[in-house]
Each structure stands twice: as structure tokens, then as C-alpha cells.
């Protein structure tokens, strides 16, 4: 039997990988989007595990909404990325450095 704390440890590991990926990654913006998705997956795991062990459905409903929002978010993110590629010709993190001060 998998216990609640196992799920929470798993999700916190995924969460940390996602966060670390965002801060360490200095090359590709697509990787950033993947890391954001990892964070959301960790959150979903949390919600489902809590929902199951509490016997309360609210958590599973929240997950549906998070999945939908995540899809919309990625759609907008990729659209912005396409624009960036069009104006800069590259999607590396280091091309986003014109705004400073």
C-alpha cells in the first residue's frame, strides 16, 4: 500500500526538479515550458493524493481545471515563442536580453 507521504515526497521531488530546471536552464526556452509543466504535474499529484486520502472530491475537480488552464497556458506560451523566433531568429534564453537597466 502506497501511503500519502510517498505521494507527497514524489510530488515534492518533481516540483523541485521543475523549479531547479527553470533556474539552472540557460539555453532553451522550450525547456522552461517543460519545467513549468513539471511543477503543475507535481501540484496535480498533490491534489489527487490528498483527495484520495481525505475521501473528498474537491481536489480531483481542481485537477481538471488545472489541466485545462495548463493547456491554455502552453498554447499562449508557444505562440509567444513563435513570435520571438520570428523577430529574433532564435529561441535561446540569451536572446532575451535587450531589456535592462
Amino acid at each position, binding site marked *: 500500500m502506497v501511503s500519502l507521504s510517498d505521494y507527497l515526497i514524489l510530488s515534492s521531488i518533481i516540483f523541485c526538479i521543475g523549479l531547479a530546471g527553470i533556474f539552472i536552464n540557460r539555453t532553451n526556452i522550450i525547456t522552461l515550458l517543460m519545467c*513549468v509543466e513539471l*511543477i503543475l504535474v507535481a501540484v496535480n499529484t498533490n491534489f489527487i493524493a490528498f483527495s484520495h486520502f481525505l475521501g473528498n472530491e474537491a481536489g480531483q475537480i481542481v485537477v481538471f*481545471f488545472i489541466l485545462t488552464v495548463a493547456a491554455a497556458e502552453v498554447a*499562449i506560451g508557444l505562440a509567444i515563442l513563435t513570435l520571438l523566433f520570428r523577430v529574433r531568429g532564435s529561441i535561446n534564453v540569451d536572446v532575451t536580453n535587450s531589456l535592462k537597466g
Partner: protein
Amino acid sequence: MNNIDTFDTATLWLALPEIFLLSAIVVVLLLDLFLTKPFKQVTYYLTQLSLLITAILAFNLIGEPKSILFGNAFILDDMASVFKIFMAGSTMVALVYTRHYLTEHKLFRGEYFVLVLLAMLGMMVMVSGYSLLTLYLGLEILSLSLYALIAIARERAGAVEAALKYFVLGAIASGLLLYGMSMIYGISGSINISDIATFSANATLASREMLILNFGLVFLVIGIAFKLGAVPFHMWVPDVYQGAPTSVTMFLSTAPKIAAVAMLIRILVEGMGAMHAYWSDLLMVLALLSIALGSVVALMQTNIKRMLAYSTISHIGFILLGFVTGVISGYGAAVFYVLVYILMSLAAFGMIILFNKQGFEADKISDFKGLSKHSPWFALMMLVIMLSMAGVPPFIGFYAKLFILQQVVSAGFISIAVIVVVFAVISAYYYLQVIKSMYFESSDKAMTTTATMDVKLILSINAVLILMVGIFPDFWIKLALSLF
């Protein structure tokens, strides 16, 4: 207080402003597709009309007893209604300036207005959200619309870059916020603010429940601080303010701040008021860092949009300071500050937009050199705006700062108040620099405006209000205090 657990169609009218706005968005979106070039202005007028009707509907709901509807997901109280009116009002004013900007820069498209309306809907959901899920959804509707709005100037590399930065950091912030929400759901067993409030009030100090609640709380505070742009989660603010089209910067810096403050009130004050001792320390650190960094870094800016971004960060610090006090009058002072900030911010960005022409952004401080010779009336108004932001009496910015500091002192944080005043004095320098450029320097390049009469009129009213409300601030203060 009405508390209706199940979904009941008879209570739908309490959400009438939201329902109306959603229908209006659909109409504007569809109608815009069928409008030919000469009739594109219809979209603009319809948008203004929808916002006006939304504000009127929200106004009619003032005085209704506090009701929690739709399975505890939605709250209608006076605070929600008043915030909705102010958000609709500031968006309407912002759109008047925006039209001038969009026409000058050939960005006038129907999508712009639809996205603004959608952002407005998201903000209304945030203001009225009473469960973690509705608050999150409102926040996402707002954020997704804002990402798209910034990228609407799709040929400008700066705007696209700003959109990308805002998107990435906004997505991280939502992720952190959600992680905190999942923790709080896990320990309290509910996503409703009222259940969380009961749970956190009953949790004993230093128990296991308290530990996990506190763990979730830290993530929630980080998420909200990201959205507000408080230091150390401010990295996106200057870049987005500078890179985004000025009309979007103006929108971004006004109404969404009310929504973010409302969300802070719903989650921290109403949901976790019992844990005030924990979150007030966090907010105190955020507030002090924001005021310090916002005041000092702005000194070195040459771009006025970037300077206003740092000034926003320091204003956010003041707003957070109001919540640190933990008393109702402190929260009232914070709400008063946010309303005042919006009035000033609208006027300041309105001034920049006023002088925008095709291919000229008027966003350098040096562009304002010698403005007093060429257009003394607008130079005078810029003077009023800058002095008000610096906190000079009798302008309204002074009273906003005064009330926050009064509350901070009476809550016993005297040393904090002294530090804050020192930084407020430092920040006066960069506001005065703009005034110096306008009045004591000359330039052979005269900035002229092609703006139509409505922009000039609304901008003048906006700036005069900063003075008038500063002389008679009673009504606004009473209004802000009556919301709690």
C-alpha cells in the same frame, strides 16, 4: 450573511456583472469579425459601453447583504462591488488613452479590446472568488489575457521579449501558488475560504497542522508577491513595463493591482486571518525590500516607463505595509493607497501616451525637456502627478502615505516607519528630476500632441482629481474603511 450551499438559479442575479460582461465579450468578439475598416471604432465604443453597464450593475449590488453563492465558490459583498466599479472605471479611462496610442502606432485591432474585457472578467472573478479554485481561475484568465496583450505589438522585439518574460515568471508564480493551495487543501480538507478560516482559527500553535498550513502559506505569499511585483519577486516588473506597448503597461499597472490586493485580502485576511502573526512577518520583509529597492534603483533610470516600474514596486511596498499592521484601519489604509496609486498611475502613463506619435514613444525622461515652454498646461499636470507620487502635500499621494504610516506607527513599528520615510525622501529625487527636465531644461525638439479632445479632457480631469481628492480625502478614506 446568506450562505447558499447549492447552486440556485434564483441567486444568479447576484453575479449579474460577471454574467453580463461575459455575454458582452462574446458579442464584441463576434461583431468585430464582421466590421469593415471604416467601422472599427464600433468595437471601441461597444467595449466602453459594456464596461459602463458592468459598473452600473455592480453599483446596483452595493448594499446587498454579504452572500456566499454557488457552492461556496463566489462571494458578493460591498468590497467586491466597490472594487469592480473601480476596476471598470479605471479600465474605461485607460481605454480612452489607449485608443490614441493604438491609432498612432497602427495597433488598432478588435482583439485588443476583447482581451482587455477578458482580463477585466478575470479580475472580477478574482475579486469575488471565495474558494482557492475560483481565485486561481480568475488569476489565470487575467494573466493569460495580459500575456497576449503584451505580445499584441508582434513586430516589436521588446514587446515579444517582455511577453515571454512575463509569461515564464507568471507561470512559475502560478505553479508556486498552486503548490501552496494544494498543501492548504491537504491539511484543511477544503478549498473554501470560510472552511480554511475555521480550520486555521482552530489549529493550535506549533501543532503539525499549523506547520503544514504555514508551509502552504509561504508558497501562497510568494505567488501573490510575484503577481504584485514585490521584491524579491519583482524581476519581471521593469522589463515588462519597458517592453510592453505603453497602453498595455498602463492597463497592467492599474486595475490588476486592485485584483491582486483583493486576492490578498481574500486569502490572507479572510482565509488565514488567524495566522496573521505568520504572514505579517513575511509581508513586512517584502514591503521593506520593495520600498528600499524601488526607491534606490529608480534613481538610475533614463527611461520613464522603467522609472515608473520601480516607483510601482515601492508603492506596492507601501500597500503591503498596510497589511502588516493586522488591524482593520490598516487594511483600509492599504485599500485607500491602491485606489490612489491607480489614479496617479493612470495619469502618469496617460501623459506619456499623450505625446506618443507614430514612431515616437516619448518614454525617455529627456523627451520631457522643456515641456513647460511648449505645452505649459500638460507640464503643470505632470508636475502635479510627480509631486503626488513623491508624496508632497496637498496632493493625494501624501495622504495615502500618511495613512499607511499612521497605522504602522500606531501598530508599534516606529523604526519601520522611520526607515520607510527615509526611502520616501530618496524617491522624491527621481520624481523631481522629471520636473527639473520639464521646467529648467530646454530643448529645440518640441513635443507636440496629436491627441483628440477626449484624451486631453479625461487626462486633465484625472490630474485635477489628484489635487481635488487630495484636498477633500474624507469620502475616499471612509469608503476604503467601510469595506471591511
